[in-house]
C-alpha cells in the first residue's frame, strides 16, 4: 500500500513540474514586456507614475515594475553577484560617475536616447540627467514671514536674527556648499570646495542643528510641526507639503542644484527596453509633464516653453533675483569618499 501511495504522489509531482514548463509558451506572444524601474519612492514615485510610467506603458505595451528606494549597496551586490533584477535606475548624478568606477552600469545607447535640448553638464557616458532638484533654504511660515525670513545661507547661520533649531541632511553634499556660502565664498568660486573652511563654518552652526535628516520626508515634517524653524531640504518635498497645507515655504535664493540621473544596471535583463524608456523620459513633453506635477526642473531645456510662467518662476528657472548654484558633480564623484569620512568624524566631535 505504501509503495502505491509513494508512486502516485511522485507521479503527481512530476506532472506538476512539466505543467509549469509549458505555461510560458502560450502567453509569450500577447504578454506585455516587463521593465523594472527603480526610483526614490514616496511622492517621487506617485508623480513619476502619472507623468512617465503610465504614458510609457501605454505607448509601448510594457508593464513597468517599480522598485524603491534606490539602494546603492543593493545595486552593487546585485551586479557583483551576477543576479541583476533592475533595468533603469534613478540615481544621484555623482553616483552615475562614481558607480562607473565600480563597473555597475551599461553604456548608454545614444543612438536610441536623443539628447537635443539637454545641457552637456547632464550627459555622461553612463548616465543622463532626469531632473534637477534643489537643496534650498526652507523655513517654517508660522515663525518667519514672506518679508522677514532667511534669504541667504549667511542668514541661516545668523541665529540671533533668525532664532530656532536647524536641520541639514546627514550628507556632505549640499551641507558643505551651504557652509561655504554662509562664510562668504562667492558662488562662482565655490568649486573646488575649500574643505577646511567649510568645516570651520559648520562648527559655528552645529550647536543649533537639532537633527540631521536622512529621509526626504523628515525635514518637511519637522518644519511643519514647528520643531525646526529653518532647514536645508529638498525643495520638491517642502513644496509638496506646502500645497497640502503645511506652514512651510522655500527660498530659492542660493539654492544648490543637483541632478538625478538615469542609469542602466550592468547585466540588466531588458537593456534595450531600458534605453527606450530613458529616451522617453528625456523628451521635452515627458519632462514638462513631470515638472508640472512636482517642483523639480527639467534637464531638457526644450521642456521649458511648455511650462507656464508661474511654474517656471516657482522652479526658479526664470530670470529673477534668485540666484541658484549648480553643484560640480565631477568634483563630488572624485572626492566623495574622503570628504564623507571627514564628515562622519566631524559629526562625532
Amino acid at each position: 500500500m505504501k509503495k502505491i501511495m509513494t508512486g502516485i504522489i511522485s507521479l503527481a509531482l512530476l506532472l506538476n513540474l512539466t505543467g509549469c514548463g509549458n505555461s510560458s509558451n502560450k502567453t509569450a506572444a500577447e504578454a506585455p514586456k516587463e521593465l523594472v524601474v527603480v526610483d526614490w519612492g514616496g511622492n517621487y514615485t506617485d508623480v513619476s507614475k502619472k507623468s512617465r510610467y503610465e504614458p510609457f506603458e501605454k505607448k509601448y505595451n510594457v508593464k513597468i515594475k517599480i522598485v524603491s528606494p534606490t539602494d546603492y549597496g543593493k545595486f552593487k551586490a546585485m551586479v557583483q553577484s551576477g543576479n541583476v533584477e533592475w533595468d533603469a535606475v534613478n540615481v544621484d548624478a555623482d553616483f552615475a560617475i562614481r558607480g562607473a568606477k565600480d563597473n555597475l552600469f551599461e553604456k548608454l545607447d545614444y543612438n536610441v536616447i536623443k539628447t537635443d535640448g539637454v545641457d552637456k553638464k547632464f550627459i555622461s557616458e553612463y548616465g543622463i540627467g532626469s531632473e534637477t532638484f534643489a537643496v534650498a533654504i526652507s523655513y517654517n511660515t508660522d515663525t518667519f514671514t514672506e518679508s522677514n525670513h532667511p534669504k541667504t545661507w549667511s542668514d541661516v547661520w545668523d541665529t540671533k536674527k533668525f532664532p530656532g533649531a536647524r536641520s541639514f541632511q546627514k550628507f556632505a553634499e549640499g551641507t558643505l556648499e551651504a557652509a561655504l556660502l554662509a562664510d562668504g565664498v562667492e558662488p562662482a568660486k565655490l568649486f573646488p570646495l575649500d574643505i577646511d573652511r567649510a568645516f570651520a563654518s559648520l562648527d559655528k552652526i552645529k550647536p543649533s542643528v537639532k537633527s540631521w535628516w536622512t529621509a526626504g520626508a523628515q525635514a518637511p515634517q519637522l518644519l511643519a510641526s514647528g520643531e525646526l524653524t529653518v532647514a536645508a531640504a529638498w525643495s520638491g518635498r517642502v513644496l509638496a507639503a506646502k500645497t497640502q497645507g503645511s506652514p512651510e515655504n522655500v527660498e530659492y535664493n542660493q539654492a544648490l542644484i543637483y541632478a538625478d540621473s538615469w542609469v542602466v544596471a550592468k547585466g540588466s535583463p531588458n537593456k534595450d527596453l531600458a534605453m527606450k524608456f530613458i529616451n522617453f523620459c528625456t523628451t521635452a513633453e515627458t519632462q514638462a509633464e513631470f515638472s508640472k506635477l512636482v517642483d523639480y526642473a527639467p534637464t531638457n531645456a526644450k521642456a521649458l516653453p511648455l511650462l507656464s510662467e508661474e511654474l517656471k518662476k516657482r522652479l526658479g528657472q526664470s530670470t529673477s533675483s534668485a540666484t541658484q548654484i549648480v553643484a560640480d558633480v565631477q568634483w563630488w564623484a572624485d572626492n566623495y569618499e574622503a570628504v564623507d569620512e571627514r564628515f562622519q568624524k566631524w559629526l562625532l566631535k
Partner: protein
Amino acid sequence: MQHEYSKTNEVVHNKNVPFSNKFKKILDPKWIMILLPIAFILITTFIPMVNLFKLSVVDENGFTMKYLSQVFTQKIYLQVIFLTLKIALLVTLSCLVLSYPISYFIVKLKSPKLKKVILQLIMIPFWISLLVRSFSWIVILQDQGVINSILKSLGLINKPIPLLFNTTGVLIGMTHVLLPYMILNVYSTMEGIDRNLVQVAQGMGAKPTRAFWEMFFPLSVPGILSGSMLVFILALGYFITPSLLGGAKDMTISMLIQNNISNTLNWSLASALALVLFLITLLLLGGLLFLMRNHPALKED
C-alpha cells in the same frame, strides 16, 4: 523508541565496540533527520559570514590589513565602538530594572487568566513595525510633542525638556523595543521557581525581605543572565532607532557599517567594522560565561 535510543547510546559510547559498528548506528534515519537540518543551518549561516569577513582583509588589490588597522588606529572608530557598547549596556540595565518588578508582579498574580492577558499586552509591540514605533516616539518626545506639551500646560516647565535627538531619546526608544524580550526571559525563569522555598525560608525565621534576597533572587539569576545577554546583543546591532531618535553624536557602529555599505560602497571597511563588532560580542559573551562558570545558576540539575 526510548529503548532503541538507549541502545544506540550504549553502542556509541561503549569504547569496546569497533568504530565501524558505531558508524552504522549513527546512519540510522533518526540521527540523519537531526544532522541534516543542523548541517543546513551551519552551512547557510557560516559560509556567508566567512565570505563577508573575508572582504575585510581582501580588496581589489589582494590581501591587505589596511582596513582592520584603520579600525583600530583611527580615533573615530574606537569612539563609535565605545559608544555602541555604552548604549547597549545602558539599555540592558534599564530593561532589567523595569522588567524585574513587572515579572515579579505577574508571577505573584493569583488568576491565570489575568496572567495571560498581561502577557499578551506585553507582546502587542511585536505586532507593530519597528519603524512605526520609532516614528511614534518622535511624536511623543519632540519639543512640541505630547510629553512636553502636557508638562508645559500643567505649568511644571517653561522650556521644553530635550528628550529627542540625543542619547536620552535613543535609550527610551530602544528600551521600549527590547523590554518584551527581557520580560519574557525573566518571567519564564521566575515562573519555574518553587514558591514553597520562600515560605520555607520564612518558616525558618527569615524576614520577608531576607527570604526574597537569599532564596528567590538567586534562583531568578539564570533568567536575568539570559535576558540580559539577549537584549545586549540585540542592542549592539540596532541602527534604525539610534538613527531616527539620536543626534549627530549618537552614532552606533551599525550606522557606520550601513553608511559604508550603501553610500561610500566601501565594503571592505564595512566588513572590517562588522568583524570587530562580532569579535567584541564573542569576547564579552565568552568572558561573562567564563566568570560565571562556577556559579550554581549555570550548573544544570
